[in-house]
């Protein structure tokens, strides 16, 4: 990690020293040229003057400009043309005119040659610095990681370098310190500020068994953390890789720009030759024709074209990373503009994803305790979140009796999971089923008497589990998954912005509608089995472009099917490989931020592409027409790349 940072700093330093060196020679050259060429005052004879310019110019072009000349000519010979090829050719030809001057009648451009190189180097220096600013968020992410860790070795606490931490080491993290690496809390309790990774400002409570993320900050208690992931396997390292890879991905709009940059340099080379030939044919002298051809070589700027998209993407994705929004595919920010329908998964996306028992209704002589004991004994065997809610409730009510000894649970024979409907089994000699309406109908169990309670639960947005003993209903349990605090606000905003919001869920229509109306969603797709979600996305796509928001773990196919897949989850619980955009926080306002960020980044990309195209379209013909002096041409070229990079940096002013 430190390696990367030093490469960048070294690059800025190198350009800076080249810049200083070049200008020390170019300033006297410029003074000489102003006196002679502009004011017409001859200080030296013209032979001596040219010789001086050649001597002073040599170090500028061939020493300070060495790397540019080398890479440019290698590009020319290997046909891997690059930006340097144009500058290298332009400056070397200009320099050679100075030598030719002694042998034939030709205008001398050797002074111009070193000025071009000096301006080029200056431009590169400014550009490199601006690029450093563009990547500052990523750099901050890289710097986030702790450098040292205090680990427990035997009974002793020793401080070691982060690179020496091994999986399984127990790390002691004091209040105010950074958690050095990903791990699990084995002792202690504290709140941890995870904002640097998730963008969420409220600290999360951590206790024994909680997962913690490396680089987050421990607030007020001492935590003993067992390292579970180290080095390049940590969450932070994954995020950095993901963001950096995404920055290299293509945005469809850049296709044309890419095609042009691919052939740009050879075309300009050809154009320069044609320009030279053309001016000669028109009866101009060799000197003037060479000067104009040099202008053409140095004014063309494939850089601004090539940089327009990646530099904007870099600033945008950096801004996102800081807020817990990861742009994984550049394409998504363009597609986002076309999206009309936003489809939300219910559980875990609109709701907290942690169902709780809210109502217990018993029938006949059944006691609440008995109902819960029976239900918990059966549901204990299921992994479903609703089953867990019932088991938790039973534990809570009975002071943990059920929790302590499994023998308090009744033993179940012939347990069956009835997918999407419920569970069933025998306790003693009685058979029980717990499940939804569908299951009761299937088993021919009459809901008479309980119907109105079930409907009431459903209207309140609760999932209702009906319990029957033999053919008789003995009670019903209402389970609610509370809506997240900001779901309503986020969805209302999206509605207001003109998006069609839709909710998809496995729940029945009535429960689904109740939740949907709580948050302001009008269209609901209910009773959907998990494997059918992708198909439902496809159905919606017939109407318009669809963005799907889901947890990334169960919804991977739907995320993939959607035009833009937005995966969300909190902290390390998220599958960051799913989705085109990933929200490392669980609040729906992140969706709004992601949309705003995508739009802002995309409009910056368009702006930059426009300027880059416009610059080349205007500047190159001017150069061909012989209107621009080579030095002016070079200044224009340097400015155009700097403009593109600085304009991208302006994106940061945008409020997301």
């Amino acid at each position: 990690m430190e390696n990367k940072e030093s490469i960048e700093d070294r690059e800025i330093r190198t350009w800076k020293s080249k810049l200083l060196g070049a200008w020390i020679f170019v300033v006297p050259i410029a003074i000489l040229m102003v006196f002679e060429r502009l004011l017409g005052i001859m200080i030296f004879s013209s032979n001596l003057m040219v010789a001086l310019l050649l001597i002073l110019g040599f170090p500028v072009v061939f020493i300070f400009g060495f790397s540019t000349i080398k890479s440019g000519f290698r590009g020319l010979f290997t046909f891997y043309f690059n930006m340097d090829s144009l500058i290298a050719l332009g400056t070397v030809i200009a320099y050679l005119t100075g030598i030719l001057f002694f042998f034939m009648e030709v205008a001398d451009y050797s002074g111009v040659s070193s000025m071009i190189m000096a301006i080029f180097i200056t431009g590169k220096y400014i550009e490199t610095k601006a690029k450093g600013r563009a990547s500052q968020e990523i750099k901050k992410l890289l710097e986030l990681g702790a450098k040292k860790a205090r680990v427990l070795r035997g009974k002793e606490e020793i401080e070691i370098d982060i690179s020496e931490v091994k999986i399984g080491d127990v790390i002691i993290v004091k209040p105010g310190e950074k958690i050095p690496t990903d791990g699990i809390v084995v002792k202690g309790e504290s709140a941890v500020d995870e904002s640097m990774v998730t963008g969420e400002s409220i600290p999360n409570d951590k206790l024994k068994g909680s997962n913690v993320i490396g680089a987050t900050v421990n607030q007020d208690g001492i935590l003993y953390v067992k390292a579970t992931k180290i080095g390049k396997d940590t969450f932070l390292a994954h995020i950095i890789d993901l963001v950096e890879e995404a920055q290299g991905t293509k945005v469809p709009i850049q296709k044309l720009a890419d095609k042009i940059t691919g052939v740009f340099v050879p075309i300009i080379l050809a154009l320069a030759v044609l320009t030279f030939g053309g001016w000669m044919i028109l009866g101009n002298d060799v000197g003037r024709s060479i000067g104009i051809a040099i202008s053409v070589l140095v004014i063309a700027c494939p850089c601004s074209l090539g940089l327009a998209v990646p530099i904007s993407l870099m600033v945008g994705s950096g801004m996102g990373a800081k807020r817990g929004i990861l742009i994984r595919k550049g394409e998504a920010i363009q597609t986002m503009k076309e999206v009309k329908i936003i489809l939300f998964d219910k559980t875990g996306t609109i709701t907290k994803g942690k169902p709780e028992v809210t109502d217990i209704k018993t029938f006949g002589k059944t006691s609440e305790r008995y109902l819960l004991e029976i239900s918990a004994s059966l549901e204990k065997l299921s992994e479903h979140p609703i089953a867990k809610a019932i088991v938790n409730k039973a534990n809570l009510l009975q002071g943990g009796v059920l929790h302590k000894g499994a023998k308090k649970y009744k033993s179940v024979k012939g347990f069956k999971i009835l997918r999407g409907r419920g569970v069933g089994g025998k306790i003693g000699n009685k058979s029980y089923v717990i499940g939804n309406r569908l299951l009761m109908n299937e088993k021919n169990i009459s809901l008479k008497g309980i119907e109105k309670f079930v409907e009431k639960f459903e209207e309140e947005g609760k999932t209702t589990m009906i319990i029957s003993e033999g053919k008789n209903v003995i009670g019903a349990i209402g389970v609610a998954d509370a809506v997240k605090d900001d779901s309503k606000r986020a969805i209302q905003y999206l509605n207001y912005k003109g998006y069609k919001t839709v909710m998809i869920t496995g729940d029945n229509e009535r429960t689904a509608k109740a939740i949907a109306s709580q948050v302001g969603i009008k269209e609901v797709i209910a009773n959907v089995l998990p494997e059918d979600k992708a198909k439902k996305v496809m159905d919606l796509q017939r109407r318009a472009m669809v963005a799907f928001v889901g947890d990334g773990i169960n919804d991977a196919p739907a995320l993939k099917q959607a035009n833009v897949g937005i995966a969300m989850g909190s902290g390390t619980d998220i599958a960051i490989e799913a989705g085109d955009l990933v929200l490392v926080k669980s609040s729906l306002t992140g969706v709004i931020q992601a949309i705003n960020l995508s739009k802002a980044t995309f409009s910056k990309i368009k702006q930059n592409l426009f300027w880059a195209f416009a610059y080349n379209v205007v500047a190159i013909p001017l150069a061909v027409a012989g209107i621009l002096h080579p030095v002016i041409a070079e200044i224009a070229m340097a400015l155009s790349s700097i403009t593109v990079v600085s304009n991208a940096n302006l994106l940061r002013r945008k409020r997301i």
Partner: protein
Amino acid sequence: MKKKILIEGMHCASCGNNVEKSLKKVPGVSEVTVNVMAKKGFVEVDEKVSDEELKKAVERAGYKAVEIN
């Protein structure tokens, strides 16, 4: 298999294009993204492709692969 290549010497967008082109020519390389600004290339390769081949491809385009992992 995904591989990350740290590349030195890329300074403009044409450079990124060059590296990308050269890496794509290596048989067994399926996906290439080059991030000029982060100085990194990301490639999807099958097991047959050796680090040496990737390194050579980067060098053929005129740049230096400092690290592959």
